[in-house]
């Protein structure tokens, strides 16, 4: 069976009437890293919480490894791991004790558990700290322990809810490398939510962009970028960016303009797009210092799908 997760028309309406997830369907293959990208409140965490049996769906189904997340919740729980931005770690316990506690809750036999804990702590290079209290660790160290804590039951599917939120860039890169490594070495399917573009871009095999409780697009990073490639993106450095911005924005070829540090980023399409942009900037009296065409980034796709366009 290649599809380890099958989600069909999943809906979550909260008691206060908010429709957080509004008919989401997708499948995930075994061994895949599947990323959810979206602005705050898009419904990515709610989707993930339903898949990890923490929330009961209002309607629709989610099947993990052939088991229904509502009906067979307990069996599903044996097969999944959960790592969230709010770390599941106890400060007064040591890394070893934290992992042991959760190992016991998964009814792992003592000898096997000891072996796993030592192995996992070694993987994240925390084995020399295994008997120190978590209280004194840095956020990066904690997240590394938290990550392997979610792996104590050798899950088939690992859910990562914003795993690098609040980490410094260095720690974030470290955690990302770890996720990629675990995915490859242990053949774990990873479901990831984040609002960092570079995170999904670097890690995910496929990306679902969520907005208003719906999946706005679902594809590989390359295909998503290609989707808007009929558009051209220009970066122009000009002398009077404020005036130029106004003039460019008025053009009918232009879909989006932004400006930072005197550099205008202009997105649009049409045969005369480049010509029209250059002319309109010049007509304001501003000088163009440099102009170049750039590749679309995932951010452009994200913005087009969640705020503009559709």
């Amino acid at each position: 069976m290649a599809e380890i997760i099958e989600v069909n028309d999943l809906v979550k309406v909260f008691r206060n009437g908010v429709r957080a997830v509004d008919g989401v369907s997708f499948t995930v293959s075994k061994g895949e890293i599947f990323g959810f990208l979206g602005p705050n409140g898009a419904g990515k965490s709610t989707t993930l919480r339903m898949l990890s049996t923490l929330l009961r769906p209002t309607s629709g189904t989610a099947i993990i490894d052939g088991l229904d997340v509502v009906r067979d919740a307990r069996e599903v729980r044996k097969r999944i791991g959960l790592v969230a931005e709010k770390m599941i770690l106890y400060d007064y316990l040591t890394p070893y004790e934290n992992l042991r506690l959760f190992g016991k809750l998964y009814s792992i036999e003592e000898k096997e558990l000891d072996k796993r804990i030592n192995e996992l702590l070694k993987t994240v290079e925390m084995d020399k700290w295994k008997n120190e209290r978590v209280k004194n660790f840095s956020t990066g160290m904690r997240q590394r322990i938290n990550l392997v804590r979610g792996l104590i039951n050798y899950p088939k599917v690992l859910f990562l809810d914003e795993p690098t939120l609040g980490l410094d860039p260095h720690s974030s890169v470290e955690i990302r490398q770890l996720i990629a490594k675990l995915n490859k070495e242990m053949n774990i399917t990873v479901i990831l939510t984040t609002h960092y573009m570079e995170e999904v871009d670097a890690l995910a095999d496929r990306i679902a962009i969520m907005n208003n409780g719906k999946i706005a697009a679902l594809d590989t990073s390359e295909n998503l970028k290609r989707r808007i490639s009929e558009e051209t993106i220009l970066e122009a450095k000009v002398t009077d960016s404020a005036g130029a911005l106004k003039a460019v924005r008025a053009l009918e070829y232009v879909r989006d303009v932004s400006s930072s540090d005197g550099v205008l980023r202009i997105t649009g399409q049409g045969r005369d797009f480049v010509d029209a942009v250059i002319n309109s900037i010049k007509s304001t009296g501003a000088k163009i210092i440099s102009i170049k065409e750039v590749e679309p980034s995932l951010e452009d796709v994200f913005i087009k799908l969640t705020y503009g366009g559709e």
Partner: protein
Amino acid sequence: MGIKSELSHTFWITWKDLMELRRSKMRMAMMVLMPLIMMAMMSFMFPSTNSVSNIPVMMVNADPGAMGSGIVQALEQINSASGMMVLKNASSEEEARDMIVEGNALGAIVIPENFSQILTTRSSTVNITVITDNSNPQISQMLSQVLTQIIDSMGERYAVMGLEPIARNIGVNPVAMVVPFRAEAKGVTEGGSYVEFVIPGLLMMTMISSVMTGLPRAIAYEKDIGTMNGFLAAPISRFSIIGGKALGRIIRGFIQGILSLILAIVLFRINVYGNLLAIFAILFLGVFSFVGLGIVLTSVAEDEETASMIIMTLTLPMMFLSGIFFPIQMMPSFMQTISKWLPFTYAVDAMRRIMVFGATLGNVYNDVLVMLIFGIATLIIAIPVFERGMTR
């Protein structure tokens, strides 16, 4: 999933909670300090006749005769044994009143000018006036009671002395002529200080609040910081979670309860008449009867703040209405009615009867029944409420 693994999960969650407690120096210190401060407060705060001392009292002897100074001497003698008062002389009733009004004295004893004269002629009775500071009602009431008693019995003794020759003539006991009968008040057991009244209730309260307030707060806290998700996403029964947490709280409460009991016996020398096993049985029954309520509150409270607010609103009236600090009979009747509906009242009552009166479990079967019924009823309500609250 067998019962054995459910129990193992419960145990590990309890272990985690107790470990967190043991490793926090502050929490450990508080656990010992809380019952100590509580006990100390209760026993020192409320006056009992034999613990009050050094009350400043003005002595006014306007009587030039020998009788007045005899009374003064006798009073001084009695007082030097108990140390209850500090007697100071004043020249007149007015001066004594001024001293009280100024706050320099809490009472006065006034022997009138014609005291010796009336006593020797026995033409009528004469009063020794006891004046008290009624802005201080507790001391005032106690002082007037004690002094009235002392002075009355001095009067009796004087009467007996006067009657002695006549009584001897007709062959009767002179005391029987003056005071033919008396009331004799006896407790079921000895002792009966305020501390002894309060401690059983405090003990019960420590234990019960540990589950009733500690449980919702502990679970709400874990929800807030997100660690609850670790338990909820694990393949364990929801009852292992609540059971593990509750057990941790019960053990903590029990340790505190025992500690309070030992402190009370060692520091305040209270007498425990009841069977220790019966005391433990009631402690556990009391806790059991409140686990259900604790779970309901847990399910209702969405975060720690809400949990704390609900708990405060519930426990404060319960504490005062259940008769821990004041006898229920001293409350207005509508409050007595409310009190009858609080299961806490029965837990406190049972504990007090066993500790102070040496009652057996059979003697308090009524209380036991109420606690059992309340415990089972709330648990029956709590189970579905909790399950729904956990998987929204």
